C-alpha cells in the first residue's frame, strides 16, 4: 500500500517563542512521508512563490494547516498563502481541479478550554463555526475536509497531556490512509 504524502504548512510568526506548536511540529517533522513548510521562515516578507507552492500541493495527498488560533483564525501569512496560491483555474472554478480529492486537515492550538467555545461560553461560537471559512475553502477546492485536531486549554496545559497529544498526532499521520477516512 502506498503511504499518502503529507504537506504540512506551518504558520507561526515567532517560532523561537512558541511552546506548543514547536512541540507538535517536532513530533511529526521526521516522518518520512511528511514535508514541512514553515511559511514565516520561507516568506518573511510575505512574497509567496506561487508556482512552487502549487507544485508542492500537486505532489501531496493530505494538506495540513498547522498554527495557533489567532483572533479565531490563522496567523496572517496563511491567509496570504490562500489568497495567492489557491488561484482560480488551479484550485477552483470550472477548470480548477488540481486539488480535487486531496484531504485537508487543520491542526490548531487554542488558549482557552473547549467549554468556552460554546453559545453559552466566553467565545460564543463553537470551533466548528469558527473554522467554517477553512471548511468551505477546502470544499470549494474539492478537497475532503477532515475533523480538525484542536489542542485546547493551552494556557495551562500539563506535560502529560501535551506529550499524549503529540504522540497521538504522530500516530495519526503515521497511519494515515486516504481510503478509510473518506
Amino acid at each position, binding site marked *: 500500500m502506498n503511504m499518502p504524502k503529507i504537506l504540512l504548512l506551518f504558520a507561526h510568526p515567532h517560532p523561537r*517563542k512558541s511552546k506548543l506548536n514547536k512541540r507538535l511540529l517536532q513530533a511529526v517533522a521526521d516522518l518520512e512521508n511528511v514535508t514541512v513548510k514553515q511559511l514565516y521562515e520561507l516568506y518573511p516578507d510575505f512574497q509567496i512563490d506561487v508556482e512552487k507552492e502549487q507544485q508542492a500541493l500537486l505532489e501531496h495527498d493530505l494538506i495540513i494547516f498547522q498554527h495557533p488560533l489567532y483572533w479565531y483564525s490563522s496567523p496572517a501569512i496563511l491567509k496570504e498563502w490562500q489568497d495567492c496560491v489557491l488561484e482560480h483555474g488551479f484550485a477552483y472554478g470550472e477548470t480548477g481541479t488540481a486539488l480535487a480529492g486531496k484531504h485537508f486537515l487543520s491542526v490548531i492550538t487554542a488558549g482557552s478550554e473547549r467549554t468556552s467555545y460554546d453559545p453559552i461560553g466566553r467565545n460564543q461560537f463553537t470551533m466548528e463555526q469558527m473554522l467554517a471559512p477553512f471548511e468551505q475553502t477546502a470544499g470549494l477546492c474539492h478537497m475532503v475536509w477532515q475533523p480538525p485536531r484542536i489542542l485546547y486549554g493551552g494556557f495551562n496545559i500539563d506535560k502529560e497531556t501535551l506529550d499524549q497529544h503529540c504522540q497521538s498526532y504522530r500516530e495519526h499521520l503515521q497511519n494515515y490512509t486516504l481510503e478509510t477516512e473518506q
Partner: protein
Amino acid sequence: MEEHSLLLSVFIYLSAAIVAVPVAKKLGLGAVLGYLIAGILIGPWVMGLINEASHVMHFAEFGVVMLLFLIGLELNPSKLWEMRKPIIGQGGLQVLLSAVIIAAVALALGLRWEYAVVAGMSLALSSTAIVLQIMDEKNLLPTPSGQSGFSILLFQDIAVIPMLAILPILSVTGSGGESEGIMGVLKALVALALIYFSGRYLLPPVFRYIAATRMREVFTAFALLLVVGIAVLMDAVGLSMALGTFMVGVLLSESEYRHELETNIEPFKGLLLGLFFISVGMTVNFGLLINQPLLILGLVVGLVFAKGLILYLIAVKSGMPSAERLRFSVLLSQGGEFAFVLLSTATTVTAIDTEISGILTVVVALSMLTTPLLMLLVERYFTPAVIDGEKPEMDVPNEHNEVIIAGFGRVGQIVARMIGARNIGATILDHNPEHIERIAKFGFKAYYGDATRMDLLETAGIAEAKILVIALDGNDQAVELAHEVTRKYPHIKILSRAWDVVHAIELMKAGVEMPQRETMYSSLKIAEDILTHMGYGAYEARQVTAKFERHDLEILHGLYHAETLEDRISIGRDLRGKFEAQMKSDSEYREKTEPDWS
C-alpha cells in the same frame, strides 16, 4: 617689513584665488583655468600686484610633489605592476616621438642641435598638475583615457631623471657641467634603496609611535615631514622629487595609516597646487608675447597640435574607444612644469641660451592655458556620442523615455535591469565607455557623455521625463546635478543614490526627497542574517530590521532639519539614544506577551 610683505602676498594670492576660481567654475571653465587667470591678473603684466613669481613657483611646485604622493597612496604595487605595459609602451612612445619631432622642427628653424635637443626633451613632457587636476574634476581617472594619460605621466616623471642627467653633456661652452658620472648614479641608487627600506621597515613602527600620541597636529607634522624629507633627499641626489614621493606613496599604499595620511596631506596639496597654477599664470611673459606675437602663438599652436596628433596616434594604436581619443589627445597636449625645471637648469649649464629659454617658457605657460579651454570645446562639441561598435554618432538622441539614468556603474546597471524587466524604457548616460560597452553585450543601450551637463540632459529629453535617477560616482557632482535639475525642472522626481548620511542630507537639501544610502540595505540584510543565525525566526528578524530601518530614517530626517553642526550632533545623539532604549524595551515587551499557548 619683510613679514608684512609676505603676509600681503599671501593675502593677494588667496584673494585672487577666491575671486577667480568660483567665477571660472560658474562659467564652466574649471578650477585650473580659474587659477591661471588669477595669476595673470595679479601678475606683472596686468595689475602688477606681485612681480616676482619664480620663487613662489619653486615653492608651489611642492603641490605637484604632494599630488604624486597621494596618487602613490592610491596605487598598490601590484596595481602598478599591472600597468607596466602602458607605462613603458604608451609613455615611451609619446616621449620619444614628441621629443624627436619637436627637436627636428627646432633644427629646421635653425637652432643649434644642442638647443634643439633641450627643446625637444622639455616640450615633450606634459603637465602632471594640470592633467591630474582636470581628470579629478571630471572624474576621468577610471576611464581608458584617464588610465592611459596617467601611465604616460608616470613615464614622463621617470624620464625627467635621465633628461636632467644629460643636460651638462649638452653644454655649449663645456663649462657648466661638473658631471658626477658614476658617483651620481651610485648616489641615486643608494637614495632609492634607502627610500625603499625605510618605507618598508622603518616607517610602520614610527607611524604607530606617532599615532599613539593621539595628537592630530603631530601626525600632520609628521606626514608633512615625510613628504618634505623625501623631496630633500631626492633633490640632493638629483632625482625627481615627485618620483620619490610617488614611490613612498606606493610603499605606504597598504599601510593602515593610508587614509589618515591622505586626509592630512590633501588640503596642503590643494592649496599648493592652486598656488602653482597662479604662479604659472604670473610667469607668462606678455612682453615677449607682445614683441613677437606671431612667433610665440605659432609655436603654441604648433606644439599643442603636434603633441595632440602624436597622442591621437597612440590612442588609435592602443585600441582606445574612439569616443575617448580626442579627449585623451587634448588632455596631455600641453607643455608641463618639468619644462620650467629643465629649461632653467639648461640655462645655467648653458645647454640653451637665455632668449630661447625665455621664449619656450612663455610657450609652455601659454600651452598650459590652452588645455582647460580645449577640454571645454571637446566636451561641448565633440563628445556626446553613441558608442555603437566603431561608429560614434555625434548626438544623444531624445528617445522620449520617462526615465533618465545618470551614471551607469554598479547602481545604475541594477536599476536599469530591473525596470527593463518591466519594459520601462530608460535613457542611460555615462561617461565611461567601458561601462557602456559592457552593458551593450546585455542588450542595453547607453549613451556616452558627462551626465552632469545640463545641455546633454536636455538633449536626452529631461524636459519631458518624469524621473531622473542619479547614480553618479562623484558625490559633489550628484548634489550639483540634483540642485540644477530641481531648480530648472521642479516637476521631475529625482531618485538618487547617496554615499553616506552626510551625502544623503546634502542631496535632500538639493531637492532629492528620499536619497538611498548605498550601503544601507546590504548592511541591514547582513544584520538580519545574524539574527536568523542566532535563532530568530526569519519573520521576526525581518520585523526587527524593518523597525530599525524606520527609526534610522527618522534620525536622518531629524538630522536633515538640524540647523547647525552642533544641532546635528546633539539631535543625532538624542534620537539614537531614544531609539535604542525603545528597541530594547520593545523586545522585552514582546517576550512577555507572546501567548503561552501558541
